[in-house]
């Protein structure tokens, strides 16, 4: 189909659509109201729940920090605390960058630029969160082992089994997740290239 033929077909279709007005007043109002409730009440629910979990855990560790007697447990405690604070911040930041396209006021080109750059930032932040998650998996066990179980897990033989299993788990997971990120980056770069053409 040539562009000129497409235009004729498009005009015919537009005329058909014009003759078939179907949307009612009440349906328009319902759409705006349902969406409004959705936007105001359901923004970032998983991230909010996760953040409360992280903050509660961070608070618990901070309160009981003096129970970590050795330098290595204190080190693990400190890293756990920092990670638990950073994880929600990065999660919310990544939501922000992915939804930062301004619907009102922007022109199409500007929105596409924001969208593509947002995607690239999103991937960078998600990668950062992934690495932090890996670090947390390693450091949280000795901390909780001491604070909840009263044991220095570094003196347990199975700790190395835990660490090596975690490493394998994260290695496999990283392969899968990063492949998805490559696709997102490729899409973003394609749009940026299209804009420059």
């Amino acid at each position, binding site marked *: *189909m*040539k*562009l000129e033929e*497409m*235009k004729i*077909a*498009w*005009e*015919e*279709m*537009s005329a*058909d*659509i*014009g003759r*078939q*007005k*179907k*949307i009612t*007043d009440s*349906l*328009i*109002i*319902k*759409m*705006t109201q*349902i*969406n*409004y*409730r*959705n*936007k105001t009440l*359901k923004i970032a629910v998983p991230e909010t729940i996760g953040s409360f979990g992280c903050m509660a855990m961070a608070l618990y560790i901070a309160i009981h920090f003096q129970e970590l007697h050795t330098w290595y447990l204190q080190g693990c405690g400190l890293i756990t605390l920092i990670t638990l604070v950073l994880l929600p911040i990065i999660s919310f930041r990544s939501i922000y960058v*992915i*939804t930062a*396209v*301004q*619907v*009102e006021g*922007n*022109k*199409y*080109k*500007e*929105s*596409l630029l924001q*969208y593509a750059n947002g995607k690239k930032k999103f991937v960078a932040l998600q990668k950062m969160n992934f690495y932090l998650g890996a670090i947390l998996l390693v450091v949280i066990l000795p901390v909780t082992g001491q604070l909840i179980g009263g044991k220095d897990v570094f003196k347990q033989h199975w700790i190395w089994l835990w660490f090596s299993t975690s490493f394998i788990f994260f290695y496999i997971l990283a392969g899968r997740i990063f492949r998805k990120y490559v696709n997102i980056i490729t899409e973003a770069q*394609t*749009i940026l290239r*299209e*804009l420059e*053409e």
Partner: protein
Amino acid sequence: MQNKNEFIRVVQENEGLIYKVAKLYTDSREDEQDLYQEIIYQLWKSFDGFRNESKISTWMYRIALNTSIVHLNRERRKGKYVPIDEMPAPPSDNGNTLKAERIEALYAHIKNLNTVEKGIVLLYLEGKSYEEIAGITGFSVSNVGTRLGRIKQKLSSQIKK
């Protein structure tokens, strides 16, 4: 909103515009209905800010196209919308199979274009001048011309394949 009736009138008058944009940027009926409703929601949100500095259709195209870009991310967190069975049927479903097939073929051709081209070709098919397309998209008038030339070539090569 003070201008509720005015907003309803504007949406009803330009219902086709919203429908056509929603169909172009989605691949399933469900997704199309979600985007359709999202565009109406974004129009409603921005309606008070519309200052009559541009034509109402120009403002609507901008909001609709920008919402479609945001919607490209939507697979991650789907919202809650009016159920699909309460929605009006798409205007192309009027029992004329041949016409419906032609429209599907038309959309299939446009969907093969990249995201930038999709927006430009939509506005061209809607009868917008190069100046108007440039005003809505933010590309220069000459760039719009160059891109439409490339789109014509792409469509010709699609036919040859």
